[in-house]
């Protein structure tokens, strides 16, 4: 867990970038006001906002995050084409069911990322997360037992996410 | 011409979700329809902002994208049994 200073700096940087995106101008008065306000906000909220501090901005982690985002986006496009094909097919070739998989992520944030990624990718939707167990609605069930399903649904994401989260 | 095709497609999407909202058998169906309609509406607002060329219109979509899911969360909490 990072020190107080690194937490404070990380919160201030995130708030300042958010301010710049929201105002989307480089007028000097706006930038100075944004700097003052983001330092004030960070002074009050840095304990709750982050747990690792500046370690989140390590270059390796940032590169991993961007790569993960592109991979995830490609998966999302495939998922959409799949669902769209099922929608416009006159017979609606769906084969739905709820399967049970196990995740190996430990932290809460990791579980959140895995669940969100599962929701947005091929034909799966997270219904419930109970500790290590996840219940997933699958639009085209290919395997019903726990091991095979765990390998097929969250396996790929977990491999990528473990690189930069744990 | 571009405008007419694009906005007609999105408008037809809105009509379909409202029909599902009007005839869905359970309250959950209606909530799903409203949730999707919120997203479709956000896209429509951004597109109309480009149509009218006014930068301030983007702020409305921003407020919409950030706040409209609170309604969905409240309905979901009610269906679960707590608030």
């Amino acid at each position, binding site marked *: 867990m990072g020190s107080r200073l690194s937490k404070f700096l990380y919160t201030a940087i995130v708030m300042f970038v958010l301010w710049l995106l929201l105002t989307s101008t480089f007028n000097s008065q706006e930038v100075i006001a944004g700097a003052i306000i983001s330092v004030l906000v960070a002074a009050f909220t840095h304990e709750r906002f982050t747990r690792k501090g500046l370690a989140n901005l390590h270059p390796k982690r940032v590169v991993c995050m961007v790569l993960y985002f592109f991979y995830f986006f490609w998966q999302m496009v495939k998922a959409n084409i799949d669902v769209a094909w099922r929608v416009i097919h006159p017979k609606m070739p769906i084969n739905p069911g709820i399967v049970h998989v196990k995740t190996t992520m430990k932290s809460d944030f990791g579980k959140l990322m895995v669940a969100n990624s599962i929701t947005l990718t091929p034909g799966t939707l997270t219904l419930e997360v109970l500790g290590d167990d996840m219940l997933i609605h699958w639009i085209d069930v290919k395997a019903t037992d726990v091991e095979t399903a765990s390998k097929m649904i969250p396996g790929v994401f977990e491999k990528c996410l473990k690189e930069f989260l744990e | 011409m571009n405008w007419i095709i694009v906005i007609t497609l999105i408008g037809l999407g809105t009509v379909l979700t409202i029909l599902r909202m009007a005839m869905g058998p359970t309250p959950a169906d209606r909530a799903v329809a409203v949730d*999707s309609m919120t997203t479709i509406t956000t896209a429509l607002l*951004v597109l109309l902002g480009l149509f009218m060329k006014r*930068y301030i219109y983007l702020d409305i979509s921003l407020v919409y994208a950030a706040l409209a899911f609170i309604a969905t969360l409240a309905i979901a909490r009610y269906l*679960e049994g707590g608030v």
Partner: protein
Amino acid sequence: MLAIIGWIMIYIGAIFLFLGALGIFRFPDVYNRLQAGTKCTTLGAFSTIVGVGLVNPPWLPKTLLIAFFILLTNPISSHALGRASYKSGVKLWEGSVVDKCKDFEECHKKEEEE
């Protein structure tokens, strides 16, 4: 050049938004509707909004922010709706293959009322 790419993205987004709405209209039960509604409308809205930003480049930062908000909030609300509809007792479609949720106590337990 950028404007042409932007228009293509807007067209793709509009088609996906329409297909998502059609999926909500056609699919047989809540969970399948949720699948179509979440995935197609998320990608459709993302593509449309970023396309608007590419057609008019000074707007790009704010459109990216809106798209990021949509990408963040949409899976959360769909997850909440799916769990709530299972707990409130909505049945699966009769053609469904398997329902592992039956084995778990927590899937059925409602929260205590005051």
